[in-house]
């Protein structure tokens, strides 16, 4: 059973990858949009959900990744452009995070907000690197000397990167560094009392989260083929924060579910409007519906979609006689909110 559970995630990814190859361009576009958003959300989830550092600079960090990958890709770095983007974002994240060694909670969140605005401004004025307001046109990503231009290929690549990021983070959270992050999130004083180097733990979180975010940014660059300052504004940071809130921060399923929800909800509303011939009415209501759903989640299920999913699984399990015992066992030992083992 345990082996099956371990294999479930890679099998799920493999099936999705194969399915992406059979989808049309639009379907494949949705797959890579969700996958890339999920990579970014995984990065943010590490920092916020597992280490307790609230960040509003995620949009700008994605931008750093996109611009770096664009420049390196245009210079012929191929797949290494994605690695370079990760490194650049990791360094930027570290620079943003250094004040967090002195700041906590809301004060750190405000510092990241300032960083978001500073980076937005830099995207506009660092013309030799960013091409300013016009934006940087990005050549297709080259893999083994061949350009990756099709949405299906980009979907497979994005899913592979998502699997790599997920696997790495699962491993990280089993190490002492990962466990230290959870304790820092709960209480820094307790962490210090337990002999944890809080500063070093946070630095690990900033660097790792930044690297993963940079990879997501690189893929945004290679899929849109244009990096411009308007694409990496605060609204993108808010979307990313919304993903981990709606999905369930500090959980493994949360970034996936949140990314799918935030990316696909506008499309779902659009299609519903078309089906009932009220698309024009729903144009205006779409953003409102999005905001309303987030409020509803915060009110009625602050642990997000992952908690809902878990409840659904339990309910389905309870219908099966053979699994009742295990369900009762789970119920008698509920996991605390934000437990990464959930």
């Amino acid at each position, binding site marked *: 059973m345990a082996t099956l559970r371990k294999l479930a995630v890679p099998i799920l990814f493999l099936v999705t990858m194969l399915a992406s190859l059979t989808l049309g361009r639009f379907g494949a576009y949705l797959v890579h949009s969700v996958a890339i958003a999920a990579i970014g959300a995984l990065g943010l989830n590490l920092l916020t959900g597992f280490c307790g550092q609230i960040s509003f600079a995620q949009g700008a960090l994605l931008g750093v990744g996109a611009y770096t990958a664009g420049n390196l890709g245009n210079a012929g770095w191929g797949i290494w452009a994605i690695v370079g983007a990760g490194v650049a974002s990791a360094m930027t994240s570290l620079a943003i995070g250094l004040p967090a060694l002195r700041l906590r909670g809301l004060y750190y969140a405000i510092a990241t907000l300032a960083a978001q605005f500073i980076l937005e401004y830099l995207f506009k004025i660092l013309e030799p690197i960013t091409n300013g*307001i*016009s*934006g940087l046109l990005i050549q297709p990503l080259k893999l083994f000397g061949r350009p990756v231009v099709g949405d299906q290929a980009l979907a497979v690549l994005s899913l592979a990167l998502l699997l790599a990021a997920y696997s790495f983070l699962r491993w990280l959270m089993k190490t002492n560094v990962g466990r230290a992050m959870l304790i820092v999130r709960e209480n820094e004083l307790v962490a210090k009392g337990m002999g944890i180097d809080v500063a070093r733990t946070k630095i690990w979180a900033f660097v790792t989260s930044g690297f993963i975010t940079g990879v997501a940014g690189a893929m945004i660059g290679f899929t*849109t083929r*244009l990096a411009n300052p308007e694409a990496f504004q605060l609204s993108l940071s808010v979307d990313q924060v919304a993903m981990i809130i709606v999905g369930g921060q500090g959980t493994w399923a949360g970034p996936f579910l949140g990314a799918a929800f935030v990316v696909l909800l506008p499309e779902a509303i659009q299609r519903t409007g078309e089906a009932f011939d009220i698309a024009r009415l729903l144009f*205006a209501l*779409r953003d409102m519906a999005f905001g309303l759903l987030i409020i509803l989640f915060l009110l009625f299920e602050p642990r997000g979609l992952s908690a809902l999913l878990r409840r659904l699984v339990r309910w389905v399990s309870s219908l099966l006689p053979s699994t009742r015992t295990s369900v009762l066992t789970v119920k008698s030992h509920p996991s605390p909110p934000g437990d990464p083992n959930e």
Partner: protein
Amino acid sequence: MNRTVRSALLAALLCIASPAIAADTINVCVWGTITGPDALVNGMSYGTHDYFTYLNQNKGGIAGFKVNSLLLDGRYKLDEELKIYRRCVDQENAVFINGWSTGAAKALRETVTQDGVPFISETFSSEVVDPVKYPYVFVAGPTYEQQMLVGLRAAKAAGAKKVVLMHGDNEYGRGPVTVVRKSGEIEKMGLELVDAIEFKYDAQDLTAQLLRVKSKKPDVIYIQSSTPQTLVILRDAAKVGLPPTKFIGNMYNISPTIPQQLGAAAEGFRAIQIYADYGADIPAMKEILTFKAKNEVAKQDVYYMKGWLEGKVMAAGIENAIKKNGGKVPADLKAFRKSIRDETEALKNLDVGGITPPLTFANHQGSTQARMAKVKNGHYVSVGSWIDAR
């Protein structure tokens, strides 16, 4: 493998390589900023969509084929627009696409060319107009740079000497200003550029910037921005004592919202006019009124006229492609799209019902002519004759 199986496989491969389309309808896609920061000028998208409805209701569609026009909301967000583009090409099998922003047109220009889909954009950016490099991309009028030159030439003709440029801090604002400054055209006209001021695109107060403008004592101030920013500029110009007669805006500043909201503070403000205003005594307006008798017209302004014109251009390209195919919709979608592109490019002296002078699309722009319009008694009135910006 026997011959039947091989033939079936070959047929299947051909179907995958070049999808067929239903022979009784023609699919077109229109996306705009139905909701979003540029929604004030989204009459352009409604205009195009409504023109196809008008054709279905009054002309039996195009060459006897009903048009299935899908109107979508790109929200002025690049990712949303890129998603919609894929839906239009992949799922809707659109034979002609009407897109929106400069950013999306730039991001998509090479993809559009690879896909071979005729694409007309609301942007006037010179960076997407190139019949050789981007043979499937069309726009519907003079570029922003050409509009700027028309405005400055008119100012020069009226005796102006010193000019200030004001623009937003985005691609739409900064891009054309940079191109014109680098070209040296302002100096060639005999004008002196005394300052160029950039402001935040969503700025709500520009008093400080306008005080700086005033200190330069310009004869003319050209605004490269959209209607909401021009409202702020003219409001704050009145505060610092700069008369609206000194200001010229591009075609996105000919919105009736400006005189409606500003009243006296807009009297004498000039903007670039490319299209006839809504309500003008022209044949196209009669069509719109026929449409209005049965349907709602969401936006009754000059941008709606632009959209109506774009619908006419798209329909003419589609109609000629059908004619060329013996009055039938070609079953091969790729070939049909290619034929529409060729026929759109071949449009010569196309009568657009008086919205603009007749259009020739060899340059992928249609018209390069514009004239000045001035706010007089709360309404825009045309002043002077058409100026060719080439």
